[in-house]
């Protein structure tokens, strides 16, 4: 029988994400803490999504606006077309 205070891992994952977005209300905070105390998987999940958030922020600080990947190139046709449009503008 599910106790009122037991949340599932799916619910915990959602709360862990919400925790990165706003201040959880006390009741949800308690449910989450109880669950994390008993569920290593969710505890690790929470640490990982928090760390990924921080990693992206560190990256933004270090190389703002740097594309994540830079090996794509405009096609020759696109380059020609854009140059033509600029000449005509």
């Amino acid at each position, binding site marked *: 029988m599910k106790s009122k205070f037991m949340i*599932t*891992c*799916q*619910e915990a*994952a*959602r709360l862990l*994400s*919400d925790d*990165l*977005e706003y201040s959880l209300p006390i009741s949800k905070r308690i449910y989450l803490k109880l669950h994390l105390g008993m569920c*290593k*998987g*969710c505890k*690790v*999940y929470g*640490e*990982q*999504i928090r*760390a*990924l*958030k*921080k*990693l*992206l*922020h*560190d*990256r*933004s600080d*270090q190389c703002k*606006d740097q*594309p*994540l*990947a*830079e*090996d*794509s*190139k*405009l*096609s020759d046709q*696109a*380059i020609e*077309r*854009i*140059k033509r*449009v*600029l000449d005509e*503008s």
Partner: protein
Amino acid sequence: MPSSASQSSENLVNPSQWVDLYGNYLFNFALGRVRNHTEAENLVQEAFVAALKSMESFQGKSSEKTWLTGILKHKIMDHYRKSYREQPVSDLQGNVDRTNDLFDDNQKMKQQPGGWLPNPKELLEKKEFWAVFQGCQHKLPKAAGDAFILKEVEKLDSKVICETLGITKSNYWVLMHRARLLLRQCLEENWFNLENKL
């Protein structure tokens, strides 16, 4: 004797060189936001045209590249607004939510997370990691991926993100949750689990 007071913006910008100097950079930037090559090309073109028209407003306080990037960002945001007006986010109710596949009947995660944590010192400089990251980002459901990038990379306020995507705060939280679930899973499978085998 040339007067510094009369230095016009024409001395600061070189439109004839823009495509060669910045084309690929801007293209890659746009690809990080719109995934589709044709859309990205069009956005780069729109940005160049807009820049040409507003050359006088360029004061040289930032570099040409930064200025052009700013214009491209505006075009990208306009593009988002238009595309989400035309095709509103549809799968918010979770009927086609891929994240349900990650949980079993007891709502427990099918695959327990491996014991890894991203190491910024190691990863920030690693191009291979960011290529994998972008691959994972591109596999996210469209709205979830867009919301996530606008928040975590572009660092926009959630209110602005909601207005742009035409969604409520509540929808936004659902999308961020989905993005995190799927992105973490993808990175685990395609990077962190493989590291030990290299």
